[in-house]
């Protein structure tokens, strides 16, 4: 198992944002993490990536406990992430944005820039690489964010809604990129909203609701799980009269 | 990270502009080379925290120049003061450089504030220009053995010695042996206050007076109650204070509020002889002593020429500025007048070496200037015949009482009456 999440909980004030969540990810899998808004997906990402420590439980990367390490250490150990609200560095160029990522592995700038160019080519963002982070469209920003995380050469890459706000063509392109990333032997954890999309790309799906894991399995099983349907789609027989 | 090729041209353009500015400046220098007027540089703090006293000195400088110009100027030419504003040492360096190299002055008068004097006189020395210091008192300014530096005023520690000495002399009137006299020293912590306090301590050690409290504070403070309380606790017979105007007012007001009532209160210039000080305290100012230069002593103690000038200065000053000259204005006048009326005519030309020789040759007895001093410079350019006088506030006016020959009155009130009962001091 490359990533083990063991009984992780996080409390904000009196509320449990994440409650006793456990799952494991095998190498080179694509895991879909879904759930309605406010289910605790992003909080879970923040816990795993070291943005804040869990109140309870442990996270292990390649068998090593990482749950009390600072975020930068976790990244250096090979776990990278993107943010739901994209955070490109607005006053840096696209190339420089990605170079910040690749510098984690290639301390010398020329090499880092070369690697960054390669990655930009890989995500097909190499055309406008001299533009500033603030000048990109939403789709480009998402891709930039992905490229930047990829540039840190992670073993595990966690993507937080990289397809939100994209149109169909763009979603398909992104899916292509995600599959290509998988081919590079990188394990992926993907938070996504749109069921159809996540179903098609994931090897396995973890469903969360109100901070808890409510399902974990292959897409087909999960899609037919009545608890999931109820949580995710809401009660169909709602009376709005 | 960014293509810089073009931004460099931006800088180059800026440089060209500054080059042009320099080019224009060169012409000014040519103008200075053929002067129609006698140019004398002035460096004073005209802005910033020390602006008030700087302006007083400036008034004195201006009036002295008017006097001399009215009499036909120097060498038959009118005198023009070229002024530089120097609120701090860096600005002093700038202004000294400007006056010397762009305005071409050979003598600079200044500077009241010691930090300004330090920096500006250094530049003058390096450029072999005379620095004529009228009122900066820090001891070590003249310890640098500069060749072109002359200081008319006494050192700060000598001021402190004078006030402490006077306190010791008053002890018998309080029926206290000077050895049993308890003294509180308080001073603002810039070089002026610190140096004065050192002089006070020196005399205290010599006379055996007991320093029961020594408090130093920043003149920029908003509250002196802790200083006041400490002094109140120690119950000293005398307080020897060195303050600027704001903290001086603050201290005495808070002292009054807390009922601090020493038998003797003496200040050391800077604040305690300023009209603003009296305005803030009203009748409670009466009875407070001040050691320092005086502008209100008895001119009968002066030599006849000096006396005439003293009277003329007093009336003309009041006519021009609408108020009586302060000691700082008088010192400014004195310094500039000596320079324009004695030193430069004696030197015969605007040449630093000649001016230096003329200044070194000066030998004026005590009582020959409008502040009572004589003039005789030692090897370091320190005037050996400057001395502070002692004043007492009476009827909200500064009245000189010591040395005797300059005293306006023999009526000296000691001990200090209680707060609110000081209207009759000196009567």
């Amino acid at each position, binding site marked *: 198992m490359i990533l083990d999440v063991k009984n992780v909980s996080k409390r904000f004030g009196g509320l449990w944002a994440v409650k006793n969540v456990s799952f494991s990810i095998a190498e080179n899998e694509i895991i879909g993490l879904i759930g309605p808004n406010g289910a605790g997906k992003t909080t879970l990402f923040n816990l795993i990536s070291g*943005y804040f420590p869990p109140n309870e439980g442990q996270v292990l990367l390649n068998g090593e406990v990482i749950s009390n390490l600072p*975020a*930068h250490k976790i990244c250096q150990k090979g776990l*990278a992430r993107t*943010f739901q609200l994209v*955070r490109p*560095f*607005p*006053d*840096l160029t696209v190339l*420089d944005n990605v*170079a*910040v990522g690749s510098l*984690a592995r290639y301390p*010398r700038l020329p090499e880092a820039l070369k690697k960054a160019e390669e990655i930009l080519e890989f995500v097909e963002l190499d055309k406008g690489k001299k533009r500033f982070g603030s000048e990109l469209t939403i789709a480009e920003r998402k891709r930039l964010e992905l490229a930047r995380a990829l540039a*840190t050469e992670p073993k595990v890459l966690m993507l937080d809604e990289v397809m939100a706000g994209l149109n169909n063509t763009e979603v398909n392109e992104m899916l292509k990129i995600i599959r290509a990333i998988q081919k590079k032997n990188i394990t992926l954890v993907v938070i996504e909203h749109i069921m159809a999309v996540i179903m098609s790309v994931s090897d396995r799906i973890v469903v969360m609701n109100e901070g808890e894991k409510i399902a974990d399995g292959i897409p087909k099983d999960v899609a037919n799980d009545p608890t999931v349907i109820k949580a995710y789609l809401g009660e169909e027989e709602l009376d709005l009269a | *990270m960014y293509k*810089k090729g*073009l*931004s*460099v041209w*931006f*800088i*180059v353009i*800026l440089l060209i502009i500054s*080059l042009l*500015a*320099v080019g224009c*400046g060169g012409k000014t220098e040519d103008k200075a080379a053929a002067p129609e007027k006698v140019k004398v540089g*002035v460096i004073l703090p*005209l802005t910033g925290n020390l*602006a008030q006293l700087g302006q007083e000195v400036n008034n004195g400088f201006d009036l002295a120049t008017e006097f001399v110009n009215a009499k036909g100027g120097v060498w038959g030419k009118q005198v023009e003061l070229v*002024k*530089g*504003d120097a609120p*701090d*040492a*860096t*600005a002093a*360096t*700038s*202004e000294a*450089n*400007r006056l*010397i*190299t*762009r305005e071409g002055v050979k003598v600079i008068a200044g500077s009241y504030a010691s*930090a300004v004097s*330090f*920096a500006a006189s*250094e530049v003058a020395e390096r450029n072999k220009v005379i620095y004529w210091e009228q009122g900066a008192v*820090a*001891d*070590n300014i003249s310890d*640098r053995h500069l060749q072109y530096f002359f200081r008319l005023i006494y050192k700060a520690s000598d001021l402190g010695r004078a006030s402490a000495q006077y306190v010791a002399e008053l002890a018998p009137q309080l029926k206290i042996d000077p050895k049993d006299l308890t003294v509180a020293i308080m001073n603002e*912590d*810039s*070089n002026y206050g*610190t*140096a004065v306090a050192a002089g006070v301590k020196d005399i205290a050690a010599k006379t055996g007076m007991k320093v029961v409290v020594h408090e130093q504070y920043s003149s920029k403070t908003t509250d002196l109650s802790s200083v006041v309380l400490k002094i109140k606790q120690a119950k000293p017979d005398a307080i020897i204070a060195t303050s600027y105007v704001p903290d001086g007012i603050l201290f005495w007001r808070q002292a009054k509020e807390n009922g601090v009532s020493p038998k003797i209160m003496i200040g050391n210039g800077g604040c305690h002889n300023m009209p603003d000080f009296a305005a803030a305290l009203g009748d409670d100012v009466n009875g407070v002593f001040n050691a320092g230069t005086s502008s209100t002593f008895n001119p009968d103690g002066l030599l006849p020429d000096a006396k005439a000038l003293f009277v003329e200065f007093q009336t003309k000053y009041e006519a021009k500025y609408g108020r009586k000259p302060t000691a700082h204005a008088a010192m400014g006048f004195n310094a500039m007048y000596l320079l324009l009326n004695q030193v430069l005519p004696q030197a015969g030309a605007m040449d630093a070496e000649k001016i230096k020789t003329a200044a070194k040759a000066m030998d004026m007895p005590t009582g020959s200037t409008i502040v009572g001093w004589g003039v005789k410079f030692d090897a370091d350019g320190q005037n050996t015949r400057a001395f502070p006088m002692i004043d007492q506030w009476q009827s909200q006016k500064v009245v000189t009482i010591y040395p005797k020959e300059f005293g306006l009155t023999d009526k000296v009130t000691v001990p200090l009456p209680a707060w609110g009962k000081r209207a009759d001091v000196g009567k």
Partner: protein
Amino acid sequence: MEFLKQRGKSFPMVAFFAVMIILSFIIKNGFYQHIFILTLFYAGMSSAWNIVGGYAGQLSLGHAAYMGIGAYTATLLYLKMGVSPWIGIIAAIIIAAAVSALISYPSFKLHGTFFAMSTLAFGEVMRIIANYWRGLTNGSVGLSIPFKPSLAHLMFEERVGYVYFAMIFLAVVLVISSRIKESRAGYYLNAIRENEIAARSLGINTSLYKLYASVISASLAAVGGVFYAFYILYIDPSGLMDSAISIQFTLMAIIGGLGTLWGPVVGAILIIPLSEFMRAWLGGVGQGLHLVIYGLIMVVVVIVSPGGLINGYKVIIRKIKKIKA
């Protein structure tokens, strides 16, 4: 010289210093030389500030303290033990670096105004300590350095010596600045400035890099302090470590362009001559008039020019490029 080796990138630097050297031959008038020296000095100080304030985005308002530490260290070593200021520079660097490391580490938890205010308070504390610690610093009486011109004493008979020294100081700061800017550290600092959370997620030890920027910046400011002491030859706490001086460094970088290599230099080239000439022209006219105008210019420039002159210029270039494209 080191920076000549940097292929095409060093062209602006070479061009700049070529112009500076030419200027050093042209400017013979002492006052202009003095302004020239001050401009180079302030450009260096502001560039040093820019490493932490611009690159890393930590708006420090206490850098005069480091200048003071540098000035006092070298001056005291020289006056009390006869140590050459060249060695004093090294001592100044060590002490300033240590102090900045000590204060910076906890203060980087603070953001925005809170950080700025804490550095302002730090600067004031250092000034008050320098004033109070009379046994060491001679307090407000200040320290005056006797003028004994020689290269070993860092004092020059001809003012042009100071011009070259200031130029070397600026060159060193600029080379270090550009080296940082064009390296991992520079990228990391920029990333921290732009978005600290994202920076952390990319494997950047943000505290460490901020510390690094702070230490280098403080060390360079201390070197500037040594230069200042041996140029003015008199130092005192209120003249050297006043918060107004810290603010000057910041102002130049902001006027010129925060976080750009040349911004602080442009800022200094504009502000120093401006304020010096204003004082020269108007200082004797009316008390304070020159500063009223100086203040007005400052307000107007800050309001009108977004993000400094260099950035304003960049925006224009960007627009031009767009039209062309």
